[in-house]
């Protein structure tokens, strides 16, 4: 739609200067453009179906009483799978653990990142560039590879199975990207606004807390949500670092749930998956609204 519209207007403006007959050929869309339009939409439909196919089981499986693995329209529909998993030990405690880990990590990361971003955004320092390049470099390192040495380190200092130690480690892994995002958001707040405060004798902390952070509130929200969503979905870190079932987040307990029974209750697994995924979907909705459409999000990664 937009394609034909912009082609039309472009032809219209250029046509005013150049030859009018050409305008008619470009302006009338039907005979030559229609096949491309149909093909493009068929291809997009195929993409949607292919991406939807593996997801369908979540919905159909969770709503069928007889734990089916296939997508079927017949059979008994019921909410029994949801009712079955909504017990404190199956669902609520793991979700609470997930929340504690993710929220703890998000808060700690955002505080540290906001503090670190201030001098990186505002001062000219000797190692500023080196530091920033190191930060960006660290965002690329595979965390999976660090997990074995992290476990060795935690075991040596006897801090495995500790929520606090896990949060500290998760924050360390989230920090590089959080500092980088935070610094970019902070660059968008003009220094001139702080100058008045400085002449009144305000220190860097007053200036950061009273002027800069309130002005970049959307940026703070984006970084917090981003870190929260990342940790909520993470499996490998808590899987390696937390051993007690009562401390494990939903990502790990759902795996235990899945692997420890002889016959897997697939309907319940699907119901659990949906309830565990919903908060993420909601937060992502907020995130993409805050960024004006989901697309600009990855665009920020270009640096």
């Amino acid at each position, binding site marked *: *739609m*937009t*394609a034909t519209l*912009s082609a039309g207007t*472009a032809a219209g403006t250029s046509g005013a200067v150049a030859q009018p007959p050409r305008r008619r050929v470009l302006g009338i869309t039907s005979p030559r453009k229609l096949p491309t339009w149909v093909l493009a*939409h068929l*291809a*997009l439909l195929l*993409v949607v179906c292919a*991406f939807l196919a*593996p997801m369908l089981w*979540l919905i159909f499986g969770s709503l069928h009483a007889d734990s089916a*693995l*296939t*997508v079927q329209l017949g059979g008994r529909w019921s909410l029994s799978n949801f009712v079955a998993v909504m017990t404190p030990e199956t669902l609520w405690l793991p979700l609470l653990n997930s929340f504690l880990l993710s929220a703890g990590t998000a808060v*700690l990361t955002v505080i540290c990142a906001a*503090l*670190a971003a201030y001098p*990186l955004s*505002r*001062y000219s*320092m000797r190692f500023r560039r080196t530091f920033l*390049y190191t930060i*960006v470099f660290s965002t*690329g390192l*595979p*965390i*999976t*590879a*660090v997990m*074995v*040495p992290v476990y*060795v*380190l935690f075991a040596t200092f006897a801090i495995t199975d500790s929520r606090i130690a896990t949060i*500290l480690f998760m924050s360390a*892994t989230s*920090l*590089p990207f959080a500092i980088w995002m935070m610094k970019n958001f902070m660059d968008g707040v003009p*220094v*001139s606004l702080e100058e008045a405060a400085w002449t009144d004798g305000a220190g860097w*902390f007053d200036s950061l807390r009273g002027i800069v952070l309130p002005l970049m509130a959307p940026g703070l929200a984006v970084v917090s949500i981003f870190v929260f*969503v990342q940790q*909520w*979905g*993470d*499996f490998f870190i808590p899987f390696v670092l937390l051993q007690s079932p009562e401390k494990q987040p939903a*990502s790990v307990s*759902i*795996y235990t749930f899945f692997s420890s029974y002889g016959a897997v209750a697939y309907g319940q*697994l*699907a119901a659990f998956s949906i309830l565990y995924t919903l908060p993420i*979907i909601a937060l*992502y909705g907020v995130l993409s609204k805050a960024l004006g459409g*989901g*697309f600009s999000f*990855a*665009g920020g*990664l*270009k*640096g």
Partner: protein
Amino acid sequence: MTATLTAPPGARVAPGARRHRGPSAAAKLLPLLPAMVLLLLFFAGPVIWSIYTAFTDQSLSGAGASHAQFIGLANFSRMVADPAFWHSIVLTVIFVVGSAVIGQNTLGLLIALLLRHRHRVTQAAVSLVVVGAWVMPEIVAAFCWYAFLNPDGSLNSWVGGLGLTQNWLYTAPVFAVILANVWRGTAFSMMVYSAALSDIAPELEEAASVDGASGWRRLWSITVPLIRRSILTNLMLITLQTLAVFTVIYVLTGGGPGGASQTTPLYMYEQAFQFYDLGYGTAMALVLLLVGALFSLIYLRFVSVDER
């Protein structure tokens, strides 16, 4: 100097007010302290520790647990002679090339191109589904594919009429994990490319089309060269992400059957946590880290910390 001159207002173009207040070097570094401590203790610490552990016989049980011995390069010479390790490296390369470089990258670019200039509703609907696969927790994505490819799953029930019914996770484990990872990761490439494509001035392509260039010709000669930088950046980032994939493979095949889909992260996990050989596992972790560091360094070439 030009960098500071052209920097936008708000960057550190030190105005007079700040300079004469001029916090000392130590005061400037103070806000960095909490982040630095966390990063040094919990990020750099394990990496440095791994360099030490990789040269020991550290294990989870037995003599190596309490009194790890320095054993020099033994872990590394064992690695070089270990066919299972080389097998895992080959699988990792196949997995990264297949699912990231070819799968996610090409499909992501294709979807971004198809979505360009489409109606807003079409764009929203397609990205909702594609991004949905990316946003959901990794373990849920893995379960979706486990159910989809199960002998009693949807795929078999759909292809049953064609006589293709089989246990996909056994007959085609590598293909299965590649497919699942393409499904999960394509959204990232799609978003990177959509952002890059939206930066292209429409006049450039319109001019080419007025000159009679065909669709493919325009794509190759105009569009792709214009987003070259995004393509390279994206390739580095998705390679790094795919190199670290553990959960999807662990849940789908567990590296099996018989090690048939055991990429290096899975082999590392098995050696360290199932065979309790932490020293050997760490040596492998170090190799993975070095490969990651190499790609991350290449990625750094496309990032600039100042020009914005």
